[in-house]
């Protein structure tokens, strides 16, 4: 286990609630990024990232004793999962009247492939996103979008975690329940596949 992770865990064991708040503040930018990436674009402006994070913090605080009893993942990955659950709950709350039961089941499964591609699609096609969208070459973007569309869900999720949420390889491994070797190999395989899809020979 890397130093930082052991440190984080020790901080939580020693410091309890006070350290939890401090650690949460340190990780806030990464968690914000998670919320912003995973939150449905239709909710942006209506749902504030800060509110989702506050909700997440309450859950995290309540679950801290349980986590410390048997910490199976690093504190960050644990916090990320609970925060993601909050995002999913937010979606469910806002879309309840519109969604079928089947969709809800899907939504309640964290980090499902559908959700990933949804977020990527929004990143690429939100019409309000004109300024930065223009930064990326339109043609390259289009090829990337099509390539991501054509990938299988596991590969796409690996790339989303690594590049949109910016998780490290170790964090990705934890999140997916893989060894670091397996996560590492899977990432390279996914990226090679993306390269082939973008530039079919």
């Amino acid at each position: 286990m890397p130093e930082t992770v052991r440190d984080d865990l020790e901080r939580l064991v020693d410091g309890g609630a006070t350290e939890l708040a401090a650690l949460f503040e340190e990780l806030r930018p990464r968690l914000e990024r998670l919320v912003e990436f995973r939150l449905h674009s239709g909710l942006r402006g209506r749902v504030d990232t800060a509110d989702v994070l506050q909700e997440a913090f309450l859950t995290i605080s309540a679950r801290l004793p349980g986590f410390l009893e048997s910490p199976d993942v690093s504190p960050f990955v644990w916090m990320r999962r609970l925060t993601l659950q909050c995002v999913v709950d937010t979606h469910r709350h806002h879309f309840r009247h519109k969604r079928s039961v089947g969709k809800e089941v899907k939504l309640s499964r964290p980090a499902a492939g559908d959700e990933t591609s949804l977020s990527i699609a929004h990143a690429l096609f939100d019409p309000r996103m004109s300024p930065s969208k223009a930064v990326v070459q339109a043609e390259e973007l289009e090829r990337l979008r099509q390539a991501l569309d054509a990938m299988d869900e596991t590969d796409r999720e690996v790339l989303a975690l690594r590049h949109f949420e910016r998780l490290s390889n170790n964090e990705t491994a934890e999140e997916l329940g893989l060894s670091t070797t397996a996560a590492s190999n899977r990432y390279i395989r996914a990226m090679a596949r993306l390269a082939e899809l973008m530039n079919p020979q």
Partner: protein
Amino acid sequence: MPTEPRHPVEILAEEFADRLRRGETPSIEEYAQRLPEQSDTIRKVFTPILAIERLSDGQLADQQFEARTARLARDHTQLGDFRIVRQVGRGGMGVVYEAIQQSLGRRVALKLLSPEVASSAEQLRRFQLEAATFAKLHHTNIVPVFGIGEADGLHFYAMQFIDGITLANAISQLSRPQSLTNATKPGTIEHALAASSTKDFMRTVARLGRDVAGALQHAHEQGIVHRDIKPGNLMLEDATVWVTDFGIAKLTDETSQTKTGLLLGTLRYMAPEQFNGQADARSDIYSLGLTLFELLTLQPAFADATHATLIKTKLSESPLRLRALRPDVPRDLETIILKAGATDSQTRYQTADALAEDLQRFLDDRPILARRASSVERLVRWSRRNPTVAGLSFAVVASLAALAIVSAGGNYRMRQTLDQLQAAKQLADQNLREKGVALDVAEQQRSLAANNLALAIEAFEEIMHNIGSRSGSGGLSVELNDGDVAYGAGVVTDADAEMLGTLLRFFDRFGTENTTSLLKETAAANRRVGDILYQLGRVEEAETSYLTALDQINRLAAENAGGEMGDDSSRTLGSIVEKLQILNALGLTVSAQGALDEAQQYFRQTADVYLADTAAQKNSSAQFEYARALNLRTSTFSRIGFPQARPLPREARGNRESPPARRQNATKSPDPALRRARAAFAATARQVHRDSKTLNQEAIRLLGALVEAHPKRVDFAIELTHAYREQARIARLELDSSTAHEANRAALELLERLLRDNSESPYFRFVFADTVTSMPVGASRRNGLALSRAIRIAGALVREYPSMPDYLALKAKALLARGDSDSSADAVRILEQLVDDYPAMAQYRLLLASGLQRLSNIDFESQRIGSAQERLEQAIAVLEADTESDQRPAILNIYIDRLKQQLEEIQQ
């Protein structure tokens, strides 16, 4: 948890991505060299990493900016001195809020710069410098910039709050008619645009353009170019138009836009030279020209969907055709806008003031300074742009010179035109000397022949347009009413025919030298010449022209079917529309000569061609021609009693291919054969009566749909009134007065709508009055009222345009329609003058003769037999006009026969 080995490339990839995120620009090769045994994999997977990181980066910035800006409005955040009230807009450049500047208690618009602009220190520095310059602009039509600010890491500038909508909003509202007047309040520009008559609309557009040009002039004098004039940057507030976002385009120029290709919404209005990064005052003039174009037509002047095609379209010299899209735009206004939007910055207005000046002249009804580019000028310009102008052969120049001489008819423009031609020819000769040696002359000639022809066609179109505008109404319909009077709407002269003949020989040469590529154009030209001859009453020559055109279009179809099938379906469709037009014209021509059976065959052929082609059935022009054919068929059906015969073909026609079987027995006297023919035709007419009713219903259905889909196409609407008139006529034959009444009402309503929408236009006033006077009088009170109105309109038109013979003829026609003795006498006086002035106009002679006939009838009823006889003799003399019967249009001979018959009856 022991750390297990990772893929070596993945370790490097993580580092690579981290460095990208820190803003470094690591090279892929560097990593390939660090791990040579994996260099292939590295090269392969690092490229998509670049793309995906860039995407993720942009997405992050956007989402953060968006979340933050949404929060600003929701929480009414305080930004420095400003308290946010609400978000009012969001665009490529940032977000706009309504805010209160607390220290001064004033309402402002705050524009928040997007992270793109705000993220670079260099950009911010420039922004501050330039904002200071823009703040110096004080003009009644420029939104004042109060200053710039920064709070909580957000950069913004404050400007006067404009409580209105953008011109882009206004345009999209105008294109949805249901939202027209309801939403706007009186006194505002958008109200003036939405609610006003055509004339007021045009003036509102001109005023708006003038004010914007004034604002631009002010900025240009300070050395500031806007660079991004477009509907979205013009704000309408009450009666004022405001120019906003001065110089912002330049600011963003070097960030997002140049890096990535320009945003399409902006590119659409951008002057061609701006594609090369050059912009000066004339670029703003161009953009304003295109903006006004869009306001008038409610569609972008250049609507291409992609950057590449948009740039290509703009750079290739395709002149905008404003009046083709909206025919009621005044010619002067069109000239001004096209000059502002000229591709070449040299031919635009050179200053915004000059543009404002011309718009003011338009508003004052003074002559504008801009001149339309004539085809000759275009020729000269074209030859300047094309160094290989060597192919501009002497024949072309000679043809155009001949044209110019005939068309200019002795005024000073002739000399001017000839000078230009001289210059063009010298240029051509010089180029020929310089280039001719080096190039394969034959090849050159061949490729340039097409260019020359295109120019000749333009010249041709221009002449047609001149004739059209001279005539006041473009229609060529000849109505053979109960009085057997033919009305042509246009005034053409023999000189026109000569001129077109000259040009036509030129076309013919190309038609024979070149194969399929030019056949459609030459066919169209022949048809137009036919139109002119037809209007001149030279129907037999017109028929020859039409037959030549038909032959050419058939040859084209045959050759297309032979080889290059489907290479250009739009061109094929064009040929089919052309063929439909030719067939209808032929039908009209032979029916004017009395050969109604033959006319029916042509109209039926029109229907056959149309119904055999599914593409044509989806094309509005083809639908229109088909509907016309239906109308013409029913109108020939219902013309019972008209002798269906024509004189023998003249020698001059030569031995060209004979049209379908026709009756060739001459008719010069009302002998028993003629009576038999009439009886036979009456029988046929009864037989086809049911058919004609069906055809008429189909025509009304089709035209109704066309009019609904194209409310601005006046020719569609007018044809629909013809269909209603046919319906009324059919209903009268069945003694079904309520249907007749209803149909007449529908026709009148349509005409009244046309007139209401275009109350200022002499053209519509003419069409309205002309149609009303051709309707049966006394069928209803409404018709009676309409006739009174028509007479008033005719009188007003004659007062406003005393030199327009069409309007004089209309007045005479209206007076004749009234029918009393004084009115008829007035009409005859007008017509006598017209016949003196325009001896070649058959329709004036016909009208005069019918007026004299009317007077004769009145005399006869009052027992003034001698006078009645004299009038009839006068009428016959007018029609004979010192010509031999075989040199007269058949229709005149038919009428003469009828008058002679009446004279005999009186004498008995």
